[in-house]
């Protein structure tokens, strides 16, 4: 509550010099952190040997070293993604489109699903004009994939901050759309939010908000694309556990999960 002697116009936080708004200070700091991350890592990296991962952990760390060994027996290499809170969407988007460069049949199917998605979003009440903007950009990239552009060009698209973020936004909208369409089911899994719509407004639609199982289930179900996530955490034995989304589907995208972050794996 306000102190009896506080002046009008002041926010509650007195620790900051006058004229500096608390929220603005937080936002400025977040921008600085994002900038630092951006300077040290690409949105989507080059292929790297999985052996490089083992250098990130102590040699005596038997759990992680064991898991990396297990991972190397199953996968050839990996691409890092930038840890900016959008990594799941970006990793999924790039990895799946990269795969579609060599899978015409699935591309046809995906193009149809993606084309229809715009009307679904508009019918849910998203502003038609912005949805259209993101949808058009998304479809342009899908068409480039149809023309079988070289992987380097697809990589360049995903490394272009603005364009890449446009694709992330559209995937976030699809995730939100699927959650809202299946509200009756998902309402059982959201804690601390009154409705699925509110959850989406806080945890799905804003940029940089991280993804959890519920996001992955929604996006993979919405596009009917199987994703296998290999979990590398402290849990369990010296083998990596995996989980397929949606359950029981054949995975087309392989992601490596380390607490708070997703990278792309290659067989």
């Amino acid at each position, binding site marked *: *509550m*306000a*102190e009896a002697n*506080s*002046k*009008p*116009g*002041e*926010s*509650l936080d007195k620790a900051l010099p006058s*004229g500096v*708004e608390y*929220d*603005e200070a937080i*936002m400025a700091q977040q921008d600085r952190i994002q900038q630092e991350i951006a300077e040290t890592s690409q949105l989507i990296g080059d292929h790297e040997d999985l052996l490089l991962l083992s250098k990130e952990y102590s040699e005596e760390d038997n759990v992680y070293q064991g898991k990396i060994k297990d991972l190397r027996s199953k996968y050839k290499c990996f691409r890092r993604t930038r840890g900016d809170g959008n990594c799941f969407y970006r990793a999924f988007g790039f990895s799946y489109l990269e795969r579609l460069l060599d899978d015409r049949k699935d591309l046809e199917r995906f193009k149809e699903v993606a084309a229809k998605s715009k009307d679904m979003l508009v019918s849910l009440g*998203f*502003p038609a*004009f*912005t*949805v259209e*903007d*993101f949808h058009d950009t998304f479809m342009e990239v899908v068409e480039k994939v149809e023309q079988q552009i070289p992987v380097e060009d697809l990589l360049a698209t995903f490394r272009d901050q*603005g364009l890449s*973020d*446009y694709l992330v*936004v559209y995937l*976030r*909208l699809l995730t939100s759309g699927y959650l809202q369409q299946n509200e009756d089911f998902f309402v059982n899994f959201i804690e601390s939010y009154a409705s699925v719509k509110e959850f989406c*407004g*806080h945890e799905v*639609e*804003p*940029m940089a908000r991280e993804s959890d199982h519920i996001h992955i289930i929604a996006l993979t179900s919405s596009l009917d694309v199987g994703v296998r996530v290999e979990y590398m955490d402290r849990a369990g034995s010296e083998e990596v556990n995996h989980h397929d989304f949606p359950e029981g589907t054949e995975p087309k995208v392989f992601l490596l999960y380390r607490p708070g972050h997703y990278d792309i794996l290659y067989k």
Partner: protein
Amino acid sequence: MANIAVARIKREFREVVKSEEAAKCNIRVELIDDNFTELRGEIAGPPETPYEGGKFLLEIKIPETYPFNPPKVKFMTKIWHPNISSVTGAICLDILKDQWAAAMTLRTVLLSLQALLSAAEPDDPQDAVVAKQYKENRHLWEKTARHWAQEYAEAPKSKKDDEFYDKVSQLAEMGFDRHKALTALSAHEWNMERATQDLIS
């Protein structure tokens, strides 16, 4: 400024201009410079609120990372509202901060601000003094907010509002700055003595 941001703002600008709300003169946007980095917004005070009949000008700055980050918006017209600083015009509204999504537009922002004028959120205040008054003496808050709208936002006046004018004028005649006098009176429940003390201290 990044091409994406410019292209978006150009389209949005047209969207607001030809929108239904704009036709009814409830919301407006204007360009300030040719680079589309700064705009001037205007919203009408919603009916059945102390802001009714007032026109509120907004400063809108478009960041280079728009639409992935929200526009920076503040009130240029002075206003007495729990979620808006009566000094700086800074706004406390979730979609201008961490709940902004790239699918939102300037139109969304202007309509949300209009909604904020209709329904304040005193538990998430930007201006602690106004929020306290809003919670503890709603009637006085309403009268004060209406007075500010008349003074700064061209809201229509009526006879019954004369009392506050007289008090401000009295302090102004004593040599105090009119706006400072109004602020002091607003913060001290329109008590002349306490407002004067505040102005002297």
